[in-house]
């Protein structure tokens, strides 16, 4: 009866738990790389490195505006690189999780499959 319990968990709640864990890891990875935040603030000035709002002649204002745009460009470049890295890492995590999900149902029958393979070769 215990075997029934083990197998029903393995192909039921256990498999589901594995999937939930995989999703959790993918979400954590995306959070680690701040993908959602970086996308939302893609063109925000990086680290506020700019002179900010200035009052003065048009030349000074233009200079400040150009300064701000430069900060935005630098920020967007850095963020894009990190987003790409993050996406790659998250994707890798997803692939590993998917592979585990696929392998999972075969684990209980692995010795049987190996036995069939071994006896098949022997015969």
């Amino acid at each position: 009866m215990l075997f029934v319990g083990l197998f029903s968990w393995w192909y039921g709640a256990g498999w589901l738990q594995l999937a939930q864990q995989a999703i959790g890891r993918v979400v954590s990875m995306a959070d680690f790389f701040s993908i959602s935040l970086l996308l939302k603030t893609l063109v925000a000035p990086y680290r506020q490195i700019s002179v900010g709002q200035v009052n003065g002649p048009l030349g000074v204002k233009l200079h400040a505006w150009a300064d701000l745009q430069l900060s935005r460009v630098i920020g967007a470049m850095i963020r894009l690189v990190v987003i790409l890295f993050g996406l790659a890492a998250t994707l890798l995590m997803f692939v590993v999780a998917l592979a585990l999900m696929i392998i999972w149902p075969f684990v209980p029958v692995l010795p049987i499959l190996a036995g069939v393979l071994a006896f098949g070769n022997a015969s």
Partner: protein
Amino acid sequence: MSALTTFDYRSLRARKARFATMLEKKTVRFGLVALISLFLLGGITLTLIGQFSAGIMLSSIAAWPLMILVWYHYELHNIPPTTKQLSLDGLLAGDILGRLPVHPSPQHIAMAVMGIPGGHFFVARFGIGPNFLTELSSTSPEHSQPIWERAYQLREQLGAATINANMVVVALVEHIPGRDQLLAQLQLDMEDIVNGAAWFEHIHEIIAKHQNSKITGGIGRDWSFGYTPLLSRFALNVSDQVLRSGLLNRDIEGHQDVLRQITSLLAGGGRQNAVLIGPTGVGKTNMVYAFAEQLMMPDGNIPKSLRYRQVVALDPASLIAQAGGRGELEGLVQNLFVEAIKAKNIIIFLDEAQLFLQDGTGAVDLSNLLLPILDGGAVRIILAMDEQRWLQLAQQNPSLAQYMNRVNVAPLNQADTMLVLEDQLLIMEFRYKVTYMYQALAEAYRLGERYVQDQAMPGKAISLLESAAQQAEGGLVTAHSVQQAIEKAFGIKVGNAQAIDERETLLNLEQLIHQRMINQSRAVTVVSNALRRARAGVRNQDRPIGTFLFLGPTGVGKTELAKSLAAVYFGGENRLVRVDLNEFGQPQDVNRLIADGAEDPHSLTAQIGKQPFSVVLLDEIEKAHPNVLNTLLQLLDEGMLRDIKNRAISFRDAIVIATSNAGADRIRQYIDAGQDLDQFEQPFINELIDSGQFKPEFLNRFDEIVVFRPLKPEELLQVVDLIIASINKTLAVQKVSVHLADAAKQVLVETGYDPRLGARPLRRVVQRAVEDLVAKRMLSGQVAAGSVIEVSLEDVQGVLQS
């Protein structure tokens, strides 16, 4: 509920639970790991020697023990309940279920739960030993049903998924015959045990919360915000600290409300600032930490404008240390605020804000600097201070106060304080390497509320628990440890009399007092009885130990009794707090009586605040102004007196003795008429009321009114003996003693007794006569160490005549 009668020992869940119980043993799990390693190593070896198929097969067999380990880790270790049908085997936690026999009796249940963490919790926290439950629980399986039903009810109440050991322990304790008496021996009642079950459940929630991965924004969280190098140097990043160390914060409605107010103020339009007002220890700083945590791990309730904003607390000490002068300091703070404004994600927190807004030692007034910043609204600010400071600030700088949004943080009640303590002690236990019992928490609340005046709850209980860690017995902080901590801090006796010495003193109090004073037996007895009642724990805890009015002429021993009591039981005459009420004859003198200790350390409230375990002597009470007497009424009634700053000072560990000479002549008349004290005491008190010297409502406040009668001549001789004994005590250092002839004593009594002043001049006369004589003889070399100085009638007469 009836479905709970179903207990299927052979159900799949019950079998899983028993299998899990077996796998709980480390040796079994180690065996499985060894088996896995063996199969894998064997397989690899076979593969390496060319037996490829056999090697693969052997290696793959490792999958089966591996599956068992995975199963244990993800399901068996914490078997989820069966939701399909309501049955015991479906709802019981796996660790209990796996330990139950086919027909479990209450004793079987007790044995099962006391062997697992839920049971261990009650052993460590409540002192309920394993034998307490197993030996007292019924051995009949028929008696198990009510226990399961109660445990099920608790599961519903606590909102748990399964019936856990903590709930079963509560149910078992409830069904023990004579449980109240047994619990009382552990200083507990049933409500405490139920609270314990909720506490254990909460610990599980904390563990589960910390096991879940946190979503905190990641590496790019702050890239849209500016660098803050200056703030990193001169401020503590509360948000970082909370993220690193975590925060134990119980959901208490009052605190949640404060958090909602802060969030709403800082996110809303208008002035985005808040000033948290509340007494020290109420948890203002903790509120800001909890707020910082919410911003770092935002849920749907946190507005976008506040998400991932960082709370930084300016450090006044490092700012003052860095800046040479006032101008430099203002420049530095200005730069800090500019940095915060530019960074766009900083919320400035000024804890103990008076340090930044008032000049003083370690403090500097930066309000002029803050005003334009608050006016501009470019940076969010949170201040924290107590009500008194806030009122001072509002008075001195109304425009600054106008800019701030006030949020009140109120002290917690007992139930909420206990919840906070339950969380805080996890940190304290880690810090002090001790274990706190539940009884220690309850005692810390009780004693903190009573004796700690300079803080509010929960701070005062936390401070007390921290002090109690030093009094831990074998690493365990008990209620007794807390009592010891408060006894050391305030020099009071809070526990019941346990030590043999103290019990002896209490039982023989009259004799001990009579070693210092003559007669007045009734007064000595009523005071001794009051003290015995207090130390046996049978007195009213909400009043002073005893309140007495001593009436009688001067020099009959009223003050001496108070002094004797202080010396014999309270630990010395310095435990006597004496207030001469003839100095309080004006209405404004009330202020002196209840003055703040910082301004007048000799005020009544200041002295008792420092030393609650005292004898309070209110001398010549009839001379006090009626306003002063009215103020004292509260003291006599409730054992509490509010000082000028409205802090409640407890007199509940003091004996209050008021003395009065009122009607002294009348007492003499009664005595001269040959009446005994017993005969005239009550008529005399009635006369005092009728003559308007005392109001009946005032006299009724005293536990006892005792009339002292003038001393008789033979008693005065005994007084001389007492004075000589005290002189001999002083001379003991020189190894000499004095002995007076009876005739000499008689002369001293005749000379020293004054019918108006009683025995008071006697001490002066005896001291002068004897001490002068002894001094002369010692200086002339007539006295050798170890000798007895004999004083004759002639000697005394000679000294008195000179």
